């Protein structure tokens, strides 16, 4: 089935123009997805192995010097470096989306990054949420969901965010010696948010058992240790009627594998995918088709995407979804002809003010979700007076802010929207008093905001 360039760009990518040779059919898009991750190679980010030595050194400094660390130049320098890493992760995310051939891979990364969102709890760990996206999401984008679920649940960013590092099996050696016990946070959210969904038939007892199963998972900033058998609860645990036993990560991986293929998980995530890509109230037949593809393939994500791209509503649903702020901003920057290199090369000050802070104003502060349920995904959540004002303000100032001299706003309109520009928008652009306001109107238009 042919989707065509407009649909591929709008519904599954970051708007027009598509680069020459971009895939415009479902099979070509899936093939590209199975191929090498070119954008990651083009705009790389440091991985945990690169990051850990610096993290360990700084954490050790804090541990040994306590309050005095704050005045230590090495500590101050590390904090600056960490902030730059967070900025770099945003720059790379934008650059990859701007330069991507069809944008679908980057859109999927953004979807899953939100599904498994984390937030740093202290200044030393601010880069970890970006690492989770890089290491637990990107490599598992098309494989079995179980792989992604395991990688995300056991990732240091998640372990710290949902307090798994302070959960001790009550009868484990450490638990009984230190008189410490369970913390249910991660166990609950894995079931409620990441797999089964809150409507599923699990009980408080399942959450407790899951929490016992997860004990041992931890993250120590000073040593880099990720599993401590001395805090793992001995014996077997039963989750949803299934018993799990064994040492180390093995039983944790086993329970997550089972959760990943449960029908409740299939329906929960099928609904989220359909809502994200197609409609706030997703067509029930689309949700059913995705859930069915999930169950038939045991959660092979590539198979689920195939069902999404080839379902009739992928082509027929009206372009009514409101773009997420980051998605909206990339679409605008593309319309202005910006490339990945432009964003990577932007000076820190302007990048902070014009990109990072603007995303916050639009309601999507980078790597700072309000809770583990992530950012919401319906139009009403994003288009309220203050958030829309931030979008309009950004649109009106973008040409100047990005240092662009736009000779012909109409050319921007044709390139970015073409046939989908409304007659009202064409009239308004022609009547604007200044070129920058004309471009601002294009960027602020509903055609740019909705997909």
């Amino acid at each position, binding site marked *: 089935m042919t989707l065509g360039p407009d649909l591929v760009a709008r519904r599954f990518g970051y708007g027009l123009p598509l680069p020459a040779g971009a895939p415009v059919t479902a099979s070509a898009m899936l093939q590209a997805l199975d191929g090498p991750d070119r954008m990651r190679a083009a705009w790389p980010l440091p991985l945990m192995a690169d990051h850990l030595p610096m993290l360990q050194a700084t954490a050790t400094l804090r541990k040994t010097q306590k309050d005095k660390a704050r005045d230590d130049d090495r500590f101050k320098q590390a904090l600056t470096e960490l902030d730059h890493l967070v900025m770099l992760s945003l720059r790379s995310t934008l650059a990859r989306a701007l330069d991507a051939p069809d944008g679908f891979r980057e859109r999927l990364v953004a979807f899953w990054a939100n599904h498994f969102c984390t937030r740093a709890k202290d200044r030393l760990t601010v880069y970890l949420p970006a690492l989770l996206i890089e290491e637990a999401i990107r490599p598992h984008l098309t494989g079995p969901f179980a792989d992604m679920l395991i990688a995300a649940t056991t990732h240091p960013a998640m372990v710290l965010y949902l307090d798994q590092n302070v959960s001790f099996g009550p009868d484990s050696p450490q638990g009984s010696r230190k008189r410490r016990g369970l*913390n249910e946070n991660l166990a609950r959210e894995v079931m*409620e948010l990441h797999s089964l969904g809150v409507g599923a038939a699990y009980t*408080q007892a399942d959450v407790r058992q899951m929490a016992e199963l997860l004990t041992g998972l931890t993250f120590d900033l000073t040593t880099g240790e990720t599993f401590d058998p001395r805090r793992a609860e001995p014996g077997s645990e039963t989750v949803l009627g299934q018993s799990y036993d064994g040492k180390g990560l093995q039983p944790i991986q086993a329970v997550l594998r089972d959760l990943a293929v449960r029908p409740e998980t299939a329906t929960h995530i099928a609904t989220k995918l359909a809502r994200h890509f197609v409609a706030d109230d997703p067509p029930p037949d689309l949700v059913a088709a995705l859930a069915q593809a999930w169950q038939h393939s045991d959660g092979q994500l590539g198979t689920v995407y195939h069902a999404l791209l080839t379902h009739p509503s992928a082509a027929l649903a009206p372009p009514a979804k409101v773009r997420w702020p980051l998605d909206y901003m990339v679409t605008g920057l593309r319309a202005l002809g910006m490339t990945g290199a432009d964003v990577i090369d932007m000076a820190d000050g302007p990048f902070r003010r014009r990109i990072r802070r603007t995303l916050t104003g639009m309601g999507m502060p980078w790597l700072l979700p309000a809770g583990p349920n992530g950012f919401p995904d319906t139009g009403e*959540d994003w288009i309220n007076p*203050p958030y829309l004002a931030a979008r309009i303000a950004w649109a009106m100032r973008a040409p100047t802010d990005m240092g662009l001299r736009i000779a012909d706003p109409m050319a921007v309109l044709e390139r970015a929207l073409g046939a989908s520009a409304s007659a009202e928008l064409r009239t308004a652009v022609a009547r604007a008093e200044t070129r920058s306001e004309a471009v*601002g109107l294009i960027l602020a238009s509903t055609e740019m905001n909705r997909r």
Partner: protein
Amino acid sequence: MAKLNRRQMLKGLGLAACSAAAHPWLTTVTLAGTDGGAPLGDHRLIVVILRGAMDGLDVVRPVGEAAYAGYRPTLLARRGSALGDFWELHPALAGLMPLWDREELGFVHATSTPYRDKRSHFDGQDLLEAGTGLDVPVAAVRDGWMNRMLQAVPGLQVQTAFALGAEAMPLLRGQAPFLTWAPDQSLPISGQGQALLQAIYHDDPLFAQAADEAILLSRQMNPDAADGMMAKPGGKPGTGVKDVAVLADYAAGHLRQDTRIAAFSLSGWDSHRSQAEGIQVPLTRLQGLILGLRDRLGPEVWGKTLLLAMTEFGRTVRENGSKGTDHGTAGAMVLAGGALRGRKVYGAWPGLDETALYAGRDLMPTSDVRAWAGWAMRGLYGLDAGLIQRTIFPGLDLGADPGILA
């Protein structure tokens, strides 16, 4: 029933804005006098949603309960002020004691929504703000209880409410118009640009409405910079201690005039670990908010004000393995204001013996959070009990009048 659509309301606001130059803040978020009446009277209601599940057992401590200290080995290291013989107030709220002494501070204990067992923040908050019982699936409820109240009262000026801050506030969502604004957001656009923007949004109600309100509100917030290119898309309000002063200032500015109801949220209550330290910030902010509102409202308006601070559910009776508490069931509600009959902890106390706990782990609920809000609305605004039980909180049994108002 006076029912204005949003567009009419905004037009009215625009008229009010003509005289905005003399007032640095919105002169009227309310449309005064469209039907000549003042259906909500003089009382002010401020609803604060404490997002994240406040540990009621730590904030209002049942120290007279024999079993209590045993459940909480690390959380009682710092002791607070006595609230009578049985209760103790968390030390981070010590600044509220003068209010307690003047009967302007009180609490409800062992109260909860009808939400049970799943202990999900997000479901819990939805249910709290939708105000329905469990017989109606929350996802099916598109409007919040306060909005239903605004729609349901005959002769009510429907625009007498606004939501503060940019985050979604389901409590107010619904057909009755309300206004949302972040105190630090403004909008750079010329008069011509504004007209063109309104033209291109004309056929998209979601964008048209939000843009109309944004343009109007930004003008009124910054009347001197109407055509300026000053925008401050700053952080989300309500994330720091200082923001609370801005919130209190902003809310009080409106409540001193025609606004009768304000609602917003304070987050940061999800104290899974190191609660003794972690709860300091949200409590400091709550205290700052209450004191800030009292100071800025002044004695007369404060005397007619009731503040209700409610949370999605309480937390476990026992500390968890990391000096925090996990999601529980019943919790506490904070009441303040000159309209309150305070210096009292309301609600039947279920006790903390093993057998008295809910599911062996949580404080047993003995009342429904919605009933307290219901009695507040009945007392402040004279709303009919049937209206409260059928329309605003469908399926609620109000029970006997607990007499929370002075």
